[in-house]
């Protein structure tokens, strides 16, 4: 499955990446799976996306929770809780 990843704000800075295309193995089925998969890249990924870190996720530009199933071609974004207004 192919995904387009996006990172914003403090996550973007800590990871040094704002966007990347990624092909993931079939075993990765949900947002939570993907997050765990990315932490296996080691630092800074393991730290920034660690379980204890409060972050939000969007699937095709809609906020979703960790159980949301991934779809081929989806845009997946990780970011900190929002602070606009």
């Amino acid at each position: 499955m192919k995904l387009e990843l996006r990172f914003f704000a403090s996550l973007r800075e800590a990871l040094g990446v704002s966007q990347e295309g990624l092909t993931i193995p079939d075993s990765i089925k949900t947002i939570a799976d993907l997050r765990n998969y990315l932490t296996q890249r080691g630092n800074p990924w393991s730290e920034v996306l660690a379980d204890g870190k409060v972050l939000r996720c969007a699937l095709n530009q809609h906020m979703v929770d960790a159980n949301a199933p991934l779809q081929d071609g989806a845009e997946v974004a990780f970011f900190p809780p929002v602070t606009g207004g």
Partner: protein
Amino acid sequence: MVLKWLSFRQLPGADVPIQIQENDFDVSAEIANLRKGDPRVGAVVTFLGTVRDMNDGSQVKGMTLEHYPGMTEKALQEILDQAKARWDIYQTLVIHRVGPLMPEDQIVLVAVTSAHRGEAFTACEFIMDYLKTAAPFWKKEDTPDGTRWVDARVTDEAAMARWVKK
């Protein structure tokens, strides 16, 4: 020249209920435009957010607002649709600035029109509470100790939770 003409043309905003922009905005022009030609309107409620020079005990010299182009507009549209479904209101407008901002600058404008004030007050507060927790904007402050990303407030989550139907 072309750019100038375009930005001038977009100043009145009723046809564009969601505007994400670096430029400042004119509140009274936006209100006038929002209610223009709609004699049903008896109330216009607005919320204007501005940049404070203090946050979490530190002086704020300025800030930069980042957002998620595409998702921002979708999230705001969902919020406005929900407000229109729940309250008897007519027109809604959200203008949110991004990029560099200074203390006292205007950041966000929410405006709602309705026949009577009650519905407009409530809808405006709802839109703002939802925007604070669901619209993908992030503030990075410039303080005397360097730059820092603003942390989300628990009170914003609590404000949003009030609106969840039980």
